[in-house]
């Protein structure tokens, strides 16, 4: 219990805003690594996921990749990339961000293709039969209906990267992990636990924000089905699968 009190005291000490390691600066770095990596990963994984979801091609590849990438040791990945890329400041950043992107891709990819895959085939068939082009089917039907699962994928990816971005400090890139790696050799447990608490809190806040976005991403007609004025229970599968994307994978 003492540890915890000391950790909280460390966290809320006025000194945390001063010196060479003020928390706001490190928080900013941490958030930068997180969002930059997730955005880059999204730019790669979303188009790929949409392609796989729409055409059904490469589905096995995506499933395999998502599963295999889960087993990637993030620490080892960063060290390996540093060895491969180099040790100047820019090269270190490139290595770290590359590692975070690689970690974020599987969840986003799975969310993107699972979202489209979960759309009722009959709805897509009908859209095609009335004369929508493949692009129109993708953008007007599949993407809106698959959006909640895609957001779920982004949510899982962000959560994973925000936790892993702690390792950026190990290769001297700052972020909130700096307190942990600084405190470790000095056995300053208040500092290590305090910053760990901060990272956990940050993760929870981000997760909460994504949970809200996910709620709003459910298209209105789809959520309207749950309203009281429904006359008959629809037998159609809802586009929003009950489970978030990250749980759908084996």
């Amino acid at each position, binding site marked *: 219990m003492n540890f915890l009190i000391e950790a909280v005291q460390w966290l809320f000490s006025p000194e945390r805003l001063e010196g060479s390691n003020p928390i706001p600066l490190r928080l900013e770095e941490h958030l930068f690594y997180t969002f930059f990596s997730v955005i880059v990963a999204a730019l790669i994984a979303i188009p790929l996921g949409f392609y796989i979801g729409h055409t059904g091609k490469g589905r096995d590849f995506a499933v395999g990749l998502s599963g295999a990438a889960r087993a990637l040791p993030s620490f080892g990945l960063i060290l390996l990339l540093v060895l491969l890329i180099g040790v100047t400041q820019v090269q270190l950043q490139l290595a770290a961000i590359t590692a975070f992107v690689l970690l974020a891709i599987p969840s986003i990819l799975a969310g993107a293709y699972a979202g489209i895959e979960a759309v*009722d085939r*009959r*709805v897509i*068939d*009908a*859209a*095609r*039969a*009335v*004369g*929508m*082009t493949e692009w*129109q089917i993708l953008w*007007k*039907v599949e993407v*809106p*209906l698959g959006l909640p699962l895609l957001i779920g994928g982004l949510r899982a990816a962000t959560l994973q990267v925000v936790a892993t971005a702690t390792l950026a400090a190990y290769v001297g890139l700052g972020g909130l992990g700096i307190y942990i790696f600084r405190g470790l050799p000095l056995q300053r447990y208040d500092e290590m636990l305090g910053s760990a608490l901060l990272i956990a809190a940050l993760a929870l806040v981000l997760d909460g924000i994504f949970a809200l976005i996910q709620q709003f991403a459910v*298209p*209105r*007609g*789809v959520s*309207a*089905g749950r*309203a009281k*004025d*429904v*006359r*008959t229970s*629809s*037998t*159609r599968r809802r*586009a929003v699968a009950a489970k978030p994307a990250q749980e759908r994978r084996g």
Partner: protein
Amino acid sequence: MIEFRAVTKRFPDGTVAVEDFNLVIPSRKITVFVGSSGSGKTTLLRMINRMVDPTDGDIEIDGDSIMSKEPVALRRSIGYVMQNSGLLPHFKVIDNVTTVPMLNGVPKKQAREQALELLDTVGLSRSIADRYPSQLSGGQQQRVGVARGLAANPNILLMDEPFGAVDPIVRAELQQETIRLQHELDKTIVFVTHDIDEAFLLGDQVVILEKGAKIAQVGSPNEIMAAPASDFVANFIGTDRGKRALTLKKTEAGTILVDSEGRGAGVLVGGSESA
């Protein structure tokens, strides 16, 4: 007029869904494809708007081969109504109905006005225009589906078991509406069903299909009932048993028609009662 010429469809897995199929579908009439599952009736229907392309043979609409037409444009010029309505769940009713006109570039305001009129035409209240499909009953959804099929004012309307998923009372209502709409709007309707009663009720021309889309018999309901072409047809339409095999029976109260079980099925009316 839609004409099938020696049409064959072989799926990549080797299944032959349709083999050497020839048929003329007259304009401004209801033609019904009826058969059990696996008879290829839906495949035939979907070939008309190129949702399925034939492996061999040709299909012509008013003398023009559909194979020379761009599938998307062809589909927009043909109405399509499917089972479970196939409405887009995230579009309001009005947006579902205006989908095709909007794709064709009709201005939004004009498309919406036409859509509201179409809701009248298919017997729906305009007040549901801003609802989502999931807030409607099955019968209402199906009516919206028909309104969407009619929205681009196509000459041809394809209906793929449209009333298969609604309860019998609503189905009877929708069948009558289909007949009324056909009389009012004069469309060429191609209708697929597995229900022979529905086929006889709606069809001007009924096409009874065996496995592999082999035509067992084509004709008006009366022609088919009067002279089933084969045992298969007789069995399918039920003249060899049950309610369509009626005989006259004199009772003390008068003459009635009875089915093969001897149960009363109706009476003869008009001048033929003495027969």
